[in-house]
């Protein structure tokens, strides 16, 4: 059995309640950190662990923490990013719903390491049940003395708040999140300054993903070196992968980084293969923003090496033949899936979610969606395909925040690997439409009663 760091106690009955959580070793990290370790030691352990941000970019967490401006006399903040809205990604929600205290414990230890006395968990507004669970867990933690003034007699104070978002994908971008938390419109900020210098209310701030923070207690208990010994190379530790699409066992899996993709897809311990015995066609391995890869390139790299579930291996080949681990939203398409329709759907999402601040993303996302809508509905032209590539190119790298890139990458990669399918849509519009009206997609077409 692979090592479990986050979901070890998943099956324990009543693990949501603090007593059960503590009976299973919970909150040990808080007393160990506050009583035996200095904040700097904690930062060093996290550095040694090689833990990388689980929100998508994979930035080394220890390094991010050490950038926090500790010389400033302003208060410092830790903000947990629980806005999880990327299509295909549903691992943070799973973790918070099932083991809410793990996040609370992580917030306390991480806040202590950073010297933050006020911390926030910014939760996507639609996840009301999670918000309630977290609030209950926080109340329990206050009652046990893990939060509030002079925690466990250590002299360290921490107030922890849950802030529901308004339900905008863009508020998952860290600076838009800060704006929203400050009560403003959730527009991303121009960087620099980075949040480590000027974040929440202009104060030094660290923003970390739920899963990143939930990994900290284990590192406190077992040491950074032990964490670094799990995984592969610079992809240390374990990662939650939310697997969806037409697989036999969709769900959230904790894997050791470095697991072969083939094993993840076909093993009964994970996805269990493609449902109904169908053929694998393509995978979006890290949430809707990352490039799609066809079967040949997701199972093996262009050089013929087995593709592994790690930051490096999934990125092998750059965007020509590789993709990204991203947030771990693993979307599997079988042989019947229509790449064009899927791309149209993704583009529709980014068009809808663009904050509209910068021209390339505001205008380009809508343009791409409209062109794809035409192609998918049988009104495409051959020149539209190159037009899409060109529009995506003019968005990528030219925007304030990475949402622009996230909208452009799926377009570039889908056309790069499945150009024939786009051409087929233009040449034979009817055959493609027919495909959607029968079989797999029949449910997606509203049935009008006469």
């Amino acid at each position: 059995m692979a090592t479990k760091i986050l979901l070890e106690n998943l099956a324990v009955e009543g693990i949501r309640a603090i007593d059960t959580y503590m009976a299973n070793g919970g909150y040990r990290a808080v007393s160990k950190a506050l009583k035996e370790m200095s904040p700097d030691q904690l930062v060093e352990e996290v550095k040694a662990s090689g833990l990388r941000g689980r929100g998508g970019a994979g930035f080394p967490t220890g390094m991010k923490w050490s950038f926090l401006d500790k010389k400033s006399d302003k208060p410092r903040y830790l903000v947990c990013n629980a806005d999880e809205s990327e299509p295909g990604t549903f691992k943070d929600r799973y973790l918070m719903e099932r083991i809410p205290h793990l996040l609370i414990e992580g917030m306390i230890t991480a806040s202590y390491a950073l010297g933050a006395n006020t911390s926030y968990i910014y939760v996507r507004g639609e996840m009301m049940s999670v918000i309630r669970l977290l609030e209950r867990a926080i109340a329990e933690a206050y009652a046990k003395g893990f939060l509030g003034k002079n925690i466990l007699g250590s002299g360290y104070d921490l107030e922890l708040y849950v802030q529901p978002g308004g339900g905008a994908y863009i508020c998952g971008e860290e600076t838009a999140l800060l704006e929203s938390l400050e009560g403003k419109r959730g527009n991303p900020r121009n960087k620099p300054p980075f949040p480590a210098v000027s974040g929440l209310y202009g104060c030094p701030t660290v923003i970390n993903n739920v899963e990143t923070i939930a990994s900290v207690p284990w590192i406190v208990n077992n040491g950074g070196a032990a964490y670094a010994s799990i995984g592969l190379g610079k992809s240390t530790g374990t990662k939650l992968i939310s697997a969806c699409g037409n697989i036999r066992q969709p769900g959230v899996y904790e894997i050791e980084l470095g697991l072969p993709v083939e094993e993840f897809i076909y093993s009964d311990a994970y996805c269990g293969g493609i449902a109904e015995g169908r053929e694998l066609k393509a995978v979006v391995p890290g949430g809707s923003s990352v490039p799609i890869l066809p079967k040949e390139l997701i199972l093996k790299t262009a050089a013929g090496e087995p593709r592994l579930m790690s930051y490096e291996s999934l990125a092998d080949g750059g965007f020509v033949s590789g993709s990204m681990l991203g947030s771990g939203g693993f979307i599997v398409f079988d042989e019947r899936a229509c790449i064009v329709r899927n791309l149209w759907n993704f583009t529709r999402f980014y068009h809808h979610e663009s904050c509209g601040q910068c021209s390339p993303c505001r205008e380009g996302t809508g343009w791409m969606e409209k062109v794809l809508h035409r192609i998918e509905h049988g009104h495409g032209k051959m020149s539209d395909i190159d037009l899409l590539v060109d529009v995506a190119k003019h968005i990528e790298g030219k925007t304030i925040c990475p949402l622009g890139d996230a909208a452009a990458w799926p377009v570039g990669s889908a056309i790069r690997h499945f150009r024939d399918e786009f051409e087929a849509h233009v040449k034979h519009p009817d055959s493609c439409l027919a495909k959607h009206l029968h079989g797999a997609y029949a449910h997606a077409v509203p049935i009008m009663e006469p």
Partner: protein
Amino acid sequence: MSDLLKVTIDGKSIEVPPGTTIMQAARQLGGKYPPAMCYYEPLKNTGGKCRVCLVKVAQTSEANPRPMPKLVASCITRVEHGMVVENETSPEVLDARNGVVEFLLINHPLDCPVCDQAGECDLQNLSYEHGHEQTRYEEGRREFERIDIGPYVQLHMTRCILCYRCVYAADQLTGQRVHGVLNRGDVSEIGTYIQQSIENEFSGNIIDVCPVGALTDKTYRFKQRVWFSKPFDAHRDCDKCCGKVVLWMKGDAIIRVTARKNEFGEVTDFICNDCRFEHKQASDWSIEGPRDIIPESVIGANKYELPVVSPAVNVDAKFVSE
């Protein structure tokens, strides 16, 4: 050792104090500086949004000779010592800029023939230089109803490029936050909270900061194409503002009053609504003389003469003689 920073833009170097942006350095250098559709120096926090000012940083600094990985917005990126910037000389920059201009135009109505801004529109100028002759955009364009913002100003969102300048102007000049941005993405709109009037003495300035014809002067609507009117610098004693304006004249008649824009198209001395909208008699003003304008501009197409003044007009002799 001075603490000036040396920056090289398109092969020309200049020394600037720390904190200077690439845009500011380029403007000081003269020549072809990056265009700006959202940045507006006199208004705090503007810039970074439209992306037409993107430039390439070929060398970050003397200490760090590596290029910056992406094009950067010159209006908000600060100069470092030894920085090397490519603006007009970089094909990558020009391609990106053409792309941005195309994006700005796809949802623009291109109704210049009936737009009061035509002739003094930054988007028109920009697309003249960076645009394609034909559009590749075949989809529907977004449209909005016109909205009256108080008695003097009309908002035509269909033409708006969401530069946020008017939002900052309203926030910073009027001391009362009355309008912001509603909705998201390409259906965002400049909101006035259910057409609530922007009622304050400086609201008219949002017309001048607007780079396009989205905010227009209702007292001037359809009176005249700008290139048929003649601008004169003039002033009056005003207890609310500096009183320094430009009068746009048609014969003897003042058909419009605006604030003065500097060589970068920016107003530094904002004027009050009283001067702008309520003083349209030549006798209200001391006329200093014809306004210096860029000869290549459409407005410059007209030859200047002093207006034929009626005896009541108070032409300030001092200015005229100089």
